[in-house]
């Protein structure tokens, strides 16, 4: 099956439950996700939505699998960029495990389309967000807006 995928692994010096909470609770997401947050009960079958301050609703979908604090699978579609929305739903797997003093976090984001623009977009976004998450949990300070001035102007 032709598909596009992006996989990113990072190791964060924080307990696994804290990393899970940071990934799934809006009061933490807003600290490091560049002002964005998500709304969901995170139970299997539940709705899932993402919001960014400048745009309102940006992404939506459904929780396909949920095993806190180890694994969640999200059905995920972009809602505010027509060329991304028309590519349809992607599948995002977040896996957490404890290794030594660290939490290993693996994000696997796939869509059933070759050279998908959606995957191109998240390939740029995930490292920024997860680097900001690691900084937030390890130092208390997330990263600011790291987009170039030109990109900030577009959004």
């Amino acid at each position, binding site marked *: 099956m032709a598909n596009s995928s992006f996989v990113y692994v990072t190791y964060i010096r924080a307990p696994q439950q804290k990393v899970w909470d940071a990934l799934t609770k809006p009061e933490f997401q807003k600290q490091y996700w560049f002002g964005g947050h998500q709304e969901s009960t995170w139970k299997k079958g539940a709705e899932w939505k993402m919001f960014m301050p400048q745009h309102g609703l940006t992404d939506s979908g459904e929780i396909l699998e949920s095993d806190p604090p180890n694994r969640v699978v999200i059905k995920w579609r972009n809602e505010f960029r027509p060329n991304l929305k028309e590519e349809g739903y992607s599948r995002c797997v977040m896996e957490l495990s404890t290794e030594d003093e660290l939490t290993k976090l693996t994000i696997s984001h796939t869509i059933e389309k070759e*050279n998908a623009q959606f995957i*191109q977009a998240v*390939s*740029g976004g995930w490292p920024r967000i997860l680097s900001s998450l690691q900084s937030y949990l390890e130092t208390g300070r997330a990263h600011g807006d790291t987009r*170039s001035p030109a*990109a900030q102007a577009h959004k």
Partner: protein
Amino acid sequence: MSNAFVYVTYIYATPQKVWDAITKPEFAHKYWMHYNVSDWKKGSRWEHQNGDHSGKVMIDGTVLESDPPRRLVTTWTRPDKSKEPSRVTYDIAEYNPGLVCLTVTHDQLEHDPGMAESVSGGWPKVLSNLKSFVETGKAENIWLIKNKG
């Protein structure tokens, strides 16, 4: 898809620069040792001409899709039409500002195993040289490079 080749290269450049490297004859000549000649509109003919200025056409075909600077799809045909055409897709994606992920897919090679073998050796050299040319302005004469023993 057993006869599809997929090559991924990361190039520090804008998508436009990578598009130009593929589609402007004087640039292709620098790293591919051939001229790529076309107006690159959908339906137009394209020619891969020998770099010796003879104008001899080594490969030709038709532009199937053209979406500059993001995507170009062409057929890839032996000029004597002795075999079925294959197809080449160039996807030029901006991975980060100033960093392009170029994916070249060469498929539909089932009926021309000789071409498949030839391009499987050729594409990596061409794309590595394209990267050097776009990033540094310098390229090697790839057809002179001997394999390391």
